[in-house]
Protein backbone atom coordinates (compact mmCIF):
# COMPACT_ATOMS: atom_id res chain seq x y z
CA UNK A 1 0.00 0.00 0.00
CA UNK A 2 1.34 3.39 -0.87
CA UNK A 3 2.05 6.07 1.65
CA UNK A 4 0.77 8.82 -0.59
CA UNK A 5 -1.94 7.27 -2.73
CA UNK A 6 -4.58 9.13 -0.82
CA UNK A 7 -2.76 12.45 -1.16
CA UNK A 8 -3.76 13.70 2.25
CA UNK A 9 -1.59 16.74 3.04
CA UNK A 10 -2.54 16.73 6.72
CA UNK A 11 -1.45 13.14 7.15
CA UNK A 12 1.72 13.89 5.24
CA UNK A 13 2.45 16.86 7.48
CA UNK A 14 2.26 14.60 10.52
CA UNK A 15 4.53 12.15 8.75
CA UNK A 16 7.06 14.95 8.20
CA UNK A 17 6.76 16.13 11.79
CA UNK A 18 7.63 12.67 12.97
CA UNK A 19 10.50 11.88 10.63
CA UNK A 20 11.72 15.25 9.33
CA UNK A 21 14.21 15.84 12.14
CA UNK A 22 15.90 12.50 11.75
CA UNK A 23 15.87 12.91 7.97
CA UNK A 24 17.49 16.35 8.07
CA UNK A 25 20.07 15.15 10.59
CA UNK A 26 21.01 12.21 8.37
CA UNK A 27 21.20 14.39 5.27
CA UNK A 28 23.40 16.85 7.14
CA UNK A 29 25.68 14.07 8.31
CA UNK A 30 26.14 12.84 4.75
CA UNK A 31 26.45 16.06 2.78
CA UNK A 32 28.02 18.14 5.56
CA UNK A 33 26.30 21.36 4.51
CA UNK A 34 23.12 22.85 6.01
CA UNK A 35 21.77 24.27 2.75
CA UNK A 36 22.38 21.10 0.81
CA UNK A 37 20.93 19.01 3.65
CA UNK A 38 17.79 21.12 3.52
CA UNK A 39 17.48 20.63 -0.24
CA UNK A 40 18.06 16.89 0.08
CA UNK A 41 15.45 16.53 2.82
CA UNK A 42 12.90 18.52 0.88
CA UNK A 43 13.52 16.51 -2.30
CA UNK A 44 13.31 13.22 -0.43
CA UNK A 45 9.99 14.09 1.21
CA UNK A 46 8.57 15.45 -2.01
CA UNK A 47 9.59 12.26 -3.78
CA UNK A 48 7.72 10.29 -1.12
CA UNK A 49 4.70 12.54 -1.52
CA UNK A 50 4.70 12.45 -5.32
CA UNK A 51 5.74 8.93 -6.06
CA UNK A 52 3.90 5.71 -5.91
CA UNK A 53 6.79 4.39 -3.84
CA UNK A 54 5.59 1.60 -1.70
CA UNK A 55 6.58 0.91 1.82
CA UNK A 56 7.39 -2.75 2.29
CA UNK A 57 6.55 -3.44 5.90
CA UNK A 58 8.37 -6.75 5.73
CA UNK A 59 11.64 -4.90 5.28
CA UNK A 60 11.53 -2.73 8.37
CA UNK A 61 10.00 0.32 9.99
CA UNK A 62 8.51 3.33 8.25
CA UNK A 63 11.34 5.43 9.66
CA UNK A 64 14.02 3.16 8.24
CA UNK A 65 12.25 3.21 4.89
CA UNK A 66 12.05 7.02 4.81
CA UNK A 67 15.65 7.41 5.98
CA UNK A 68 16.76 5.01 3.26
CA UNK A 69 15.24 7.36 0.69
CA UNK A 70 16.94 10.36 2.32
CA UNK A 71 20.26 8.55 2.37
CA UNK A 72 20.05 7.70 -1.34
CA UNK A 73 19.17 11.29 -2.20
CA UNK A 74 22.02 12.62 -0.07
CA UNK A 75 24.55 10.27 -1.65
CA UNK A 76 23.32 11.30 -5.11
CA UNK A 77 23.67 14.96 -4.17
CA UNK A 78 27.15 14.34 -2.83
CA UNK A 79 28.18 12.67 -6.06
CA UNK A 80 26.58 15.32 -8.27
CA UNK A 81 28.39 18.06 -6.40
CA UNK A 82 31.65 16.10 -6.52
CA UNK A 83 32.06 16.91 -2.90
CA UNK A 84 34.65 15.23 -0.76
CA UNK A 85 33.58 12.48 1.60
CA UNK A 86 32.15 13.68 4.88
CA UNK A 87 34.47 13.85 7.81
CA UNK A 88 34.97 10.54 9.50
CA UNK A 89 35.23 11.59 13.10
CA UNK A 90 32.12 11.51 15.23
CA UNK A 91 32.51 14.90 16.82
CA UNK A 92 29.66 16.86 15.35
CA UNK A 93 29.31 19.13 18.36
CA UNK A 94 30.55 22.16 16.49
CA UNK A 95 27.81 21.65 13.92
CA UNK A 96 25.24 21.31 16.64
CA UNK A 97 26.38 24.41 18.38
CA UNK A 98 25.71 26.36 15.24
CA UNK A 99 22.04 25.38 15.33
CA UNK A 100 19.48 27.55 17.05
CA UNK A 101 18.78 25.95 20.40
CA UNK A 102 15.77 27.96 21.49
CA UNK A 103 13.08 25.63 20.17
CA UNK A 104 14.63 22.31 21.11
CA UNK A 105 11.95 20.17 22.64
CA UNK A 106 12.04 17.49 25.25
CA UNK A 107 11.45 14.89 22.57
CA UNK A 108 14.38 16.21 20.61
CA UNK A 109 16.53 16.07 23.71
CA UNK A 110 15.57 12.44 24.17
CA UNK A 111 16.26 11.70 20.52
CA UNK A 112 19.66 13.32 20.88
CA UNK A 113 20.37 11.33 23.99
CA UNK A 114 19.36 8.13 22.22
CA UNK A 115 21.60 9.05 19.32
CA UNK A 116 24.43 9.67 21.75
CA UNK A 117 24.00 6.26 23.32
CA UNK A 118 23.93 4.63 19.91
CA UNK A 119 27.06 6.48 18.87
CA UNK A 120 28.76 5.31 22.01
CA UNK A 121 27.78 1.73 21.19
CA UNK A 122 29.17 2.15 17.69
CA UNK A 123 32.29 3.69 19.17
CA UNK A 124 33.39 0.39 20.65
CA UNK A 125 34.16 -0.91 17.17
CA UNK A 126 37.83 -0.95 16.21
CA UNK A 127 38.64 2.04 14.04
CA UNK A 128 39.28 -0.01 10.91
CA UNK A 129 35.80 -1.52 11.13
CA UNK A 130 33.87 1.67 11.91
CA UNK A 131 35.81 3.48 9.21
CA UNK A 132 34.73 1.18 6.37
CA UNK A 133 31.13 1.16 7.61
CA UNK A 134 31.03 4.96 7.75
CA UNK A 135 32.64 5.33 4.35
CA UNK A 136 30.09 2.93 2.87
CA UNK A 137 26.95 4.18 4.57
CA UNK A 138 27.57 7.89 5.05
CA UNK A 139 30.05 8.38 2.22
CA UNK A 140 28.27 6.25 -0.37
CA UNK A 141 31.50 4.59 -1.46
CA UNK A 142 31.55 1.07 -2.87
CA UNK A 143 33.74 -1.54 -1.26
CA UNK A 144 36.18 -1.40 -4.17
CA UNK A 145 36.43 2.40 -3.88
CA UNK A 146 37.10 2.04 -0.17
CA UNK A 147 39.73 -0.62 -0.81
CA UNK A 148 41.49 1.71 -3.21
CA UNK A 149 41.15 4.67 -0.85
CA UNK A 150 42.61 2.78 2.11
CA UNK A 151 45.12 0.77 0.11
CA UNK A 152 43.77 -2.50 1.49
CA UNK A 153 42.73 -5.69 -0.34
CA UNK A 154 39.06 -5.94 -1.27
CA UNK A 155 38.62 -9.07 0.83
CA UNK A 156 39.94 -7.23 3.88
CA UNK A 157 37.46 -4.40 3.39
CA UNK A 158 34.55 -6.80 3.00
CA UNK A 159 35.71 -8.70 6.07
CA UNK A 160 35.87 -5.52 8.16
CA UNK A 161 32.37 -4.57 7.03
CA UNK A 162 31.03 -7.99 7.91
CA UNK A 163 32.65 -8.22 11.33
CA UNK A 164 31.80 -4.61 12.20
CA UNK A 165 28.18 -4.90 11.19
CA UNK A 166 27.76 -8.21 12.95
CA UNK A 167 29.19 -6.66 16.13
CA UNK A 168 26.73 -3.76 15.91
CA UNK A 169 23.91 -6.23 15.40
CA UNK A 170 25.03 -8.27 18.36
CA UNK A 171 25.17 -5.11 20.49
CA UNK A 172 21.66 -4.27 19.34
CA UNK A 173 20.46 -7.64 20.51
CA UNK A 174 21.95 -6.90 23.91
CA UNK A 175 19.71 -3.96 24.59
CA UNK A 176 20.26 -0.90 22.45
CA UNK A 177 16.77 0.57 21.98
CA UNK A 178 15.05 -0.74 18.89
CA UNK A 179 13.14 2.45 18.33
CA UNK A 180 13.36 6.08 19.33
CA UNK A 181 11.93 6.92 22.69
CA UNK A 182 8.62 8.66 22.06
CA UNK A 183 8.75 12.23 23.26
CA UNK A 184 6.80 14.19 25.80
CA UNK A 185 5.85 11.33 28.07
CA UNK A 186 4.89 11.70 31.64
Amino acid at each position, binding site marked *: *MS*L*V*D*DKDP*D*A*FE*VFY*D*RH*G*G*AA*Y*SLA*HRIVGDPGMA*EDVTQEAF*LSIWRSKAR*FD*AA*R*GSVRAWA*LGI*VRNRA*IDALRSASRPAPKLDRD*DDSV*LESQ*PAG*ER*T*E*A*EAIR*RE*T*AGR*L*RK*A*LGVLPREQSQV*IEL*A*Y*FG*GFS*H*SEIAEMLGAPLGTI*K*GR*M*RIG*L*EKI*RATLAEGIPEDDV*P*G*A*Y*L
Partner: protein
Amino acid sequence: MSDHLGESTGHERYRGDLAAYALGALEQREAAELQRHLADCEACRMHLRWLEPAVDLLPRSVEQLEPPAGLRKRLMATVRAEARDASGAGIAAAEPRRWRDWGTLFWRPATAVAASALLIVGAAAGYLLHQPGDSSSVITARPSSAAPSNLAGTLEREDGSAILTMSRLPALPPNDVYEVWVKRDGTLAPSSLFVPRRDRTAEAAVPGPLDDADAVLVTREPRGGSQHPTSSPLLRATLR
Protein backbone atom coordinates in the same frame (compact mmCIF):
# COMPACT_ATOMS: atom_id res chain seq x y z
CA MET B 1 19.73 -18.48 12.38
CA SER B 2 20.76 -21.19 9.96
CA ASP B 3 24.35 -21.49 9.06
CA HIS B 4 25.15 -23.01 5.74
CA LEU B 5 28.76 -21.93 5.69
CA GLY B 6 30.84 -24.51 3.97
CA GLU B 7 28.07 -25.76 1.72
CA SER B 8 29.87 -24.41 -1.27
CA THR B 9 32.55 -21.89 -2.04
CA GLY B 10 29.97 -19.86 -4.02
CA HIS B 11 27.69 -19.70 -1.04
CA GLU B 12 30.54 -18.61 1.26
CA ARG B 13 31.45 -15.84 -1.13
CA TYR B 14 27.89 -14.55 -1.21
CA ARG B 15 27.62 -14.82 2.55
CA GLY B 16 30.72 -12.65 2.85
CA ASP B 17 29.09 -10.03 0.60
CA LEU B 18 25.93 -9.64 2.65
CA ALA B 19 27.25 -6.91 4.95
CA ALA B 20 28.55 -4.86 2.02
CA TYR B 21 25.20 -5.38 0.29
CA ALA B 22 23.27 -4.25 3.37
CA LEU B 23 25.45 -1.14 3.53
CA GLY B 24 24.83 -0.42 -0.16
CA ALA B 25 28.52 -0.88 -0.91
CA LEU B 26 28.41 -3.56 -3.60
CA GLU B 27 28.87 -2.62 -7.22
CA GLN B 28 25.66 -2.84 -9.26
CA ARG B 29 26.69 -6.04 -11.01
CA GLU B 30 27.68 -7.71 -7.74
CA ALA B 31 24.46 -6.63 -6.08
CA ALA B 32 22.40 -8.09 -8.94
CA GLU B 33 24.34 -11.36 -8.69
CA LEU B 34 23.80 -11.52 -4.94
CA GLN B 35 20.10 -10.81 -5.37
CA ARG B 36 19.85 -13.85 -7.65
CA HIS B 37 21.56 -15.95 -4.99
CA LEU B 38 19.26 -14.56 -2.30
CA ALA B 39 16.24 -15.67 -4.29
CA ASP B 40 17.37 -19.27 -3.85
CA CYS B 41 19.13 -19.21 -0.48
CA GLU B 42 17.03 -19.05 2.67
CA ALA B 43 20.11 -19.01 4.93
CA CYS B 44 21.49 -15.88 3.28
CA ARG B 45 18.07 -14.20 3.30
CA MET B 46 17.83 -14.87 7.02
CA HIS B 47 21.30 -13.55 7.67
CA LEU B 48 20.54 -10.40 5.69
CA ARG B 49 17.31 -9.86 7.65
CA TRP B 50 19.33 -10.29 10.83
CA LEU B 51 21.88 -7.68 9.71
CA GLU B 52 19.36 -5.06 8.55
CA PRO B 53 18.55 -3.62 12.01
CA ALA B 54 22.24 -2.84 12.41
CA VAL B 55 22.16 -0.79 9.22
CA ASP B 56 18.92 0.89 10.33
CA LEU B 57 20.75 1.93 13.48
CA LEU B 58 23.33 3.98 11.58
CA PRO B 59 21.12 6.95 10.57
CA ARG B 60 19.73 7.13 14.09
CA SER B 61 23.21 7.42 15.54
CA VAL B 62 23.98 10.78 13.94
CA GLU B 63 23.71 13.97 15.94
CA GLN B 64 20.08 15.10 15.88
CA LEU B 65 19.69 18.58 14.45
CA GLU B 66 16.64 20.75 14.28
CA PRO B 67 15.58 21.24 10.67
CA PRO B 68 15.21 24.86 9.60
CA ALA B 69 11.62 26.05 10.07
CA GLY B 70 11.55 27.23 6.48
CA LEU B 71 11.99 23.66 5.26
CA ARG B 72 8.69 22.53 6.73
CA LYS B 73 6.95 25.64 5.46
CA ARG B 74 8.24 25.25 1.90
CA LEU B 75 7.64 21.51 1.81
CA MET B 76 4.06 21.78 3.01
CA ALA B 77 3.33 24.74 0.73
CA THR B 78 4.36 22.58 -2.23
CA VAL B 79 2.47 19.56 -0.97
CA ARG B 80 -0.72 21.53 -0.38
CA ALA B 81 -0.42 23.26 -3.75
CA GLU B 82 -0.04 19.90 -5.48
CA ALA B 83 -2.97 18.47 -3.55
CA ARG B 84 -5.00 21.49 -4.62
CA ASP B 85 -3.99 21.04 -8.24
CA ALA B 86 -4.79 17.34 -8.19
CA SER B 87 -8.21 17.90 -6.68
CA GLY B 88 -8.80 21.02 -8.75
CA ALA B 89 -8.24 19.04 -11.94
CA GLY B 90 -11.02 16.69 -10.92
CA ILE B 91 -13.34 19.57 -10.14
CA ALA B 92 -12.51 21.32 -13.39
CA ALA B 93 -13.39 18.26 -15.39
CA ALA B 94 -16.69 17.81 -13.64
CA GLU B 95 -17.95 21.36 -13.18
CA PRO B 96 -18.92 24.29 -15.39
CA ARG B 97 -16.21 26.80 -16.12
CA ARG B 98 -17.62 29.52 -13.88
CA TRP B 99 -16.98 27.34 -10.86
CA ARG B 100 -13.27 27.06 -11.53
CA ASP B 101 -12.49 30.45 -10.02
CA TRP B 102 -14.39 29.43 -6.94
CA GLY B 103 -12.21 26.37 -6.86
CA THR B 104 -9.15 28.56 -6.56
CA LEU B 105 -10.74 30.54 -3.76
CA PHE B 106 -11.84 27.33 -2.11
CA TRP B 107 -8.28 26.12 -1.92
CA ARG B 108 -6.76 29.16 -0.32
CA PRO B 109 -4.68 28.10 2.68
CA ALA B 110 -7.20 29.35 5.23
CA THR B 111 -9.77 26.87 3.98
CA ALA B 112 -7.54 24.17 2.61
CA VAL B 113 -7.80 21.84 5.59
CA ALA B 114 -11.59 21.91 5.69
CA ALA B 115 -11.79 21.66 1.92
CA SER B 116 -9.52 18.66 1.75
CA ALA B 117 -11.90 16.81 4.02
CA LEU B 118 -14.69 17.44 1.52
CA LEU B 119 -12.81 16.80 -1.67
CA ILE B 120 -10.62 13.86 -0.88
CA VAL B 121 -13.59 11.65 -0.32
CA GLY B 122 -11.63 8.55 -1.02
CA ALA B 123 -9.18 9.50 1.68
CA ALA B 124 -11.78 9.88 4.41
CA ALA B 125 -10.58 6.78 6.16
CA GLY B 126 -6.98 7.95 6.06
CA TYR B 127 -4.11 6.28 4.41
CA LEU B 128 -2.74 2.90 5.15
CA LEU B 129 0.70 1.45 4.85
CA HIS B 130 -0.59 -2.01 4.84
CA GLN B 131 -0.10 -5.05 2.73
CA PRO B 132 -2.00 -8.25 3.24
CA GLY B 133 -0.33 -10.21 5.96
CA ASP B 134 1.86 -7.35 7.16
CA SER B 135 1.78 -6.11 10.72
CA SER B 136 2.37 -2.40 10.00
CA SER B 137 -0.10 0.26 9.03
CA VAL B 138 -0.60 4.00 9.38
CA ILE B 139 -4.10 5.30 9.99
CA THR B 140 -5.15 8.92 9.99
CA ALA B 141 -6.63 10.06 13.31
CA ARG B 142 -9.51 12.50 12.87
CA PRO B 143 -10.45 15.43 15.13
CA SER B 144 -13.88 15.27 16.73
CA SER B 145 -16.40 18.08 16.51
CA ALA B 146 -15.18 19.22 19.94
CA ALA B 147 -11.62 19.68 18.67
CA PRO B 148 -10.01 22.37 16.53
CA SER B 149 -10.52 21.35 12.90
CA ASN B 150 -6.82 21.55 12.12
CA LEU B 151 -5.85 19.07 14.82
CA ALA B 152 -4.15 16.20 12.98
CA GLY B 153 -2.77 12.83 13.89
CA THR B 154 -1.66 9.48 12.62
CA LEU B 155 -1.57 6.14 14.34
CA GLU B 156 1.33 4.01 13.21
CA ARG B 157 0.74 0.39 14.11
CA GLU B 158 3.62 -1.98 14.24
CA ASP B 159 3.94 -5.43 15.73
CA GLY B 160 0.80 -5.17 17.80
CA SER B 161 1.48 -1.77 19.40
CA ALA B 162 1.25 1.71 17.95
CA ILE B 163 2.63 5.24 18.07
CA LEU B 164 0.15 8.11 17.93
CA THR B 165 1.69 11.20 16.36
CA MET B 166 -0.18 14.49 16.59
CA SER B 167 0.20 18.09 15.52
CA ARG B 168 -1.61 21.33 16.30
CA LEU B 169 -2.81 20.10 19.67
CA PRO B 170 -4.54 22.76 21.77
CA ALA B 171 -2.33 24.14 24.54
CA LEU B 172 -3.02 22.63 27.96
CA PRO B 173 -3.68 24.40 31.25
CA PRO B 174 -0.80 23.76 33.68
CA ASN B 175 -2.60 20.99 35.57
CA ASP B 176 -3.93 19.05 32.61
CA VAL B 177 -2.51 16.29 30.43
CA TYR B 178 -3.68 14.43 27.39
CA GLU B 179 -4.66 10.82 27.86
CA VAL B 180 -4.84 8.07 25.25
CA TRP B 181 -7.67 5.53 25.42
CA VAL B 182 -8.16 2.22 23.69
CA LYS B 183 -11.75 1.34 22.88
CA ARG B 184 -12.82 -2.30 22.91
CA ASP B 185 -16.42 -3.52 22.79
CA GLY B 186 -17.71 -0.10 23.78
CA THR B 187 -15.38 0.23 26.78
CA LEU B 188 -12.52 2.71 27.07
CA ALA B 189 -9.31 1.54 28.75
CA PRO B 190 -6.71 4.15 29.79
CA SER B 191 -3.42 3.97 27.93
CA SER B 192 -0.58 6.52 27.97
CA LEU B 193 -0.38 10.15 29.11
CA PHE B 194 1.43 12.93 27.31
CA VAL B 195 1.79 16.68 27.02
CA PRO B 196 2.46 18.46 23.73
CA ARG B 197 5.75 20.08 22.90
CA ARG B 198 6.04 23.82 22.53
CA ASP B 199 5.32 23.48 18.83
CA ARG B 200 2.06 21.70 19.75
CA THR B 201 3.18 18.33 18.40
CA ALA B 202 3.40 15.13 20.42
CA GLU B 203 3.96 11.44 20.12
CA ALA B 204 2.46 8.86 22.42
CA ALA B 205 2.98 5.15 22.61
CA VAL B 206 -0.09 2.97 22.59
CA PRO B 207 1.04 -0.38 24.00
CA GLY B 208 -0.62 -3.40 22.47
CA PRO B 209 -2.07 -5.75 21.80
CA LEU B 210 -4.47 -3.76 19.64
CA ASP B 211 -5.75 -6.63 17.54
CA ASP B 212 -9.16 -6.59 19.19
CA ALA B 213 -9.34 -2.80 19.61
CA ASP B 214 -11.96 -0.75 17.81
CA ALA B 215 -10.43 2.70 18.15
CA VAL B 216 -7.78 4.84 19.84
CA LEU B 217 -8.96 8.16 21.29
CA VAL B 218 -7.43 11.16 23.04
CA THR B 219 -9.03 13.27 25.78
CA ARG B 220 -7.87 16.06 28.07
CA GLU B 221 -7.61 14.94 31.69
CA PRO B 222 -6.35 16.24 35.04
CA ARG B 223 -2.61 15.71 35.65
CA GLY B 224 -2.00 12.12 36.63
CA GLY B 225 -4.64 10.89 34.23
CA SER B 226 -8.03 9.35 34.81
CA GLN B 227 -9.43 5.86 34.94
CA HIS B 228 -12.50 7.03 33.02
CA PRO B 229 -12.65 9.93 30.55
CA THR B 230 -13.74 13.22 32.08
CA SER B 231 -13.96 15.14 28.80
CA SER B 232 -15.07 14.54 25.24
CA PRO B 233 -12.56 12.87 22.90
CA LEU B 234 -10.61 15.31 20.73
CA LEU B 235 -9.06 12.82 18.35
CA ARG B 236 -10.06 9.39 17.14
CA ALA B 237 -8.28 6.75 15.08
CA THR B 238 -10.71 4.07 14.00
CA LEU B 239 -9.08 0.68 13.81
CA ARG B 240 -12.01 -1.33 12.51
